[in-house]
């Protein structure tokens, strides 16, 4: 009975409110989108591998408010990221800065690719030369055996 009443009430409510567009969580959705884009690049310092945008931690909420505040003051994304970096260190940036200690991090993939391609080239070059290798007596014998077994197999 109570359930039915509740449902009826709900229907009534939803009927009366039909078409009422929900308010955005924030006053300015465009500013929010920019704020969240910035927050998505920052690491929540007190969480495990989360961004400021994702985290529910109080610190993350504070930082999100700080970003919104600074955006309202007309600061650019670079200003804000720079501010965060100055305040929390490189650790807060999910995209590590390019500097002496991260040189290997940023150039590493290129280096790996170069090593891989050089190795590949070397191997292919060797393959080209290999055609000229002299065959030993034993090799010839084995080749003969191989050909024989093939012929046999085909004959069957």
């Amino acid at each position, binding site marked *: 009975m109570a359930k039915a009443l509740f449902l009826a009430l709900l229907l009534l409510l939803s009927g009366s409110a039909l078409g009422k*567009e929900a308010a955005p969580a924030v006053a300015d959705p465009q500013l929010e989108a920019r704020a969240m884009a910035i927050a998505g690049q920052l690491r929540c310092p007190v969480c495990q591998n989360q961004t400021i945008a994702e985290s529910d931690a109080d610190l993350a909420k504070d930082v999100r408010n700080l970003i919104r505040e600074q955006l309202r003051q007309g600061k650019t994304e670079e200003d804000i990221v720079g501010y965060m970096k100055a305040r929390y260190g490189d*650790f807060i940036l*999910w995209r590590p*800065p390019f500097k002496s200690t*991260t040189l290997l*991090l940023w150039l590493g*993939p290129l280096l790996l690719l170069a090593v*891989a391609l050089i*190795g590949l080239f070397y191997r*292919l070059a060797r393959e080209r030369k290999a055609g000229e290798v002299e065959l030993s007596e034993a090799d010839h014998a084995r080749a003969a055996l191989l050909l024989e077994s093939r012929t046999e197999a085909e004959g069957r």
Partner: protein
Amino acid sequence: MTNMIPEFGQLALALAFALALVQGIMPLAGAARSNAAWMSVGRSAAHAQLLCLAIAFGVLTYSFVISDFSVAYVANNSNRSLPLAYRIAGVWGGHEGSLLLWMLIFALWSAAVTLFSRRLPEDMVARVLGVMGLVAAGFLAFMIFTSNPFNRLLPAPADGRDLNPLLQDIGMVLHPPFLYMGYVGFSVAFAFSIAALISGRFDAAWARWSRPWTTVAWVFLTLGNAAGSWWAYYELGWGGWWFWDPVENSSFMPWLLGTGLIHSLAVTEKRGTFRSWTVLLAISTFAFSLLGTFLVRSGVLTSVHAFASDPMRGVFMLAFLVAVVGGSLAVYAWRSPRIRVRGGTFSLLSRESLLLTNNVLLAAATGTVMLGTMYPLALDALGLGRVSVGSPYFDTVFLPVMAPVLFLIGVGPIARWKRAHLPDLASRLRWAFAVSLAAGLALPFAFGDWSPLVAFGMALAAWIVATTAVSVWDRIRSPAPSAFYGMVLAHVGMAVLILGITVVRGYETQKEVRMEAGDTVELSGYVYRFDGVTQVQGANYVAAQATIEVTRSGKRVATLYPSKRTYLSQQKPMTEAAIDAGITRDLYATLGDALDAGTWLVRVQYKPFLNWIWAGIALMACGGLLAAGDRRYRLAVRSQREEQAVMQPLEVRGQHG
């Protein structure tokens, strides 16, 4: 009145360790001295070890079921109010228990080797089991001395600390077993390689034996990674499905290398070439599997410092890794120069060279992921500052390395072995290229705006599908083996996966709104009506559950129930997303904080083609199974003697190149 049962687990572990030592020494020694009796010890030792580990695992499960908190591991990962299913899953919810699961699976694979290798030469089986026994001994020593799941906590606490609520979920229950099936499966390929090196029978037969094992392992690893990703998608509550998190990376690296290994083994089997590379790849795939196992649950990823405060585990696992990798490289260096057998030669443009390129690039991609994952740890350990390496980094560096690999998926299967002719290749790929170009130019408009990245992804997906169609067309006249269709399925799966990723990243939308009962919000054509929040009582949590009706052009689509759970043992509420899954889109709703009595923050997301990601992965796994089940592998074993000659391909100069 503590019960004695956990001591039986302790005993079983110790026995398993002793048996592993026997399995590691006797068969290897027997094979070296051609002593059949010693060699045969391997099989029995493997079976006995499986029995011991099954007992140990059973004991730990029993301790969880009866909530025996005098066992420290149970006290740390369970709780009286935890439902039975999660008490059982809690067995592998932490570091020690997941190692035990790993070991049990390892014993299962060893036993499988003894079952399915009846037709292999006895000394080969003995060596394979011996190598696996040595690995098992090392792993068991690590468990017993640094991570023993049966350690006591006396006096026993009244209640346990509970299993992390994030892990109380079916996705997380399935994720570790599948992952470990994959990791451990690669140990078989590893053991086969080492055995081949030691025996000097470094022929292509070894590659043929290894192939089905490796492919099955790869299938499990693929599914394990997917389960983890799927879990992150619906359980973490913000709609992401891949975060380039170190934990994900450490299971992604063996997958990348394992993918390379599958392809390299194919060349070694078919053409007898790339032997050294295949062996190195088998060794490193397994090494990365070990690294993945250690990294994830050991705590090193969370904080280098917490880890360093208890250095025993770190030192041991480093030593173990060094022993495995160093030992196998030593065997490799010792044996490979003596058994340098020339495989079939090939020209600069051939299926061999293309597959080698793909392998080398996959290795470079693995190295890149490893660099990004380990760099912050290394920097921190060296005291050079703390940095974070996240998705912006990986998105930047990973795609350029992987894109050529994906492109080569289209060329490799069409190119001929030994020598491909460029004009011939070009003429066969012409229309596939046109299809791909057209897809890149036009297809994005079917979804929304055109952007370069979306166009690139779609062109790539179309390229793989079109070229695969060409290769099927070429083979359709003569019956092809099921391995061929396995490859086709896996490659098409890759295309489906790429399309899914491209569309969802290019066109997903979201809105965060404040809602009272009756409020509506419109997103990408769907109207969400919020019908209020009710309290729901779960087994070990209470939840605030919202009801959201979704309609599209007036027609009802779904009812979503996103909720916020508060577990009795924890303070912070957890978000439980509600998802309406569909072929072309997922509707994703999460409930945020209550702003006042009747107003709630609600986030709705529209995720087009998300399920194509899972579908693509499922296709890849099916392709793997189809390939592994190819009857050639079974026939091959039967007619093995005939093969000995054929299996050492040798090219006679003058026939070609």
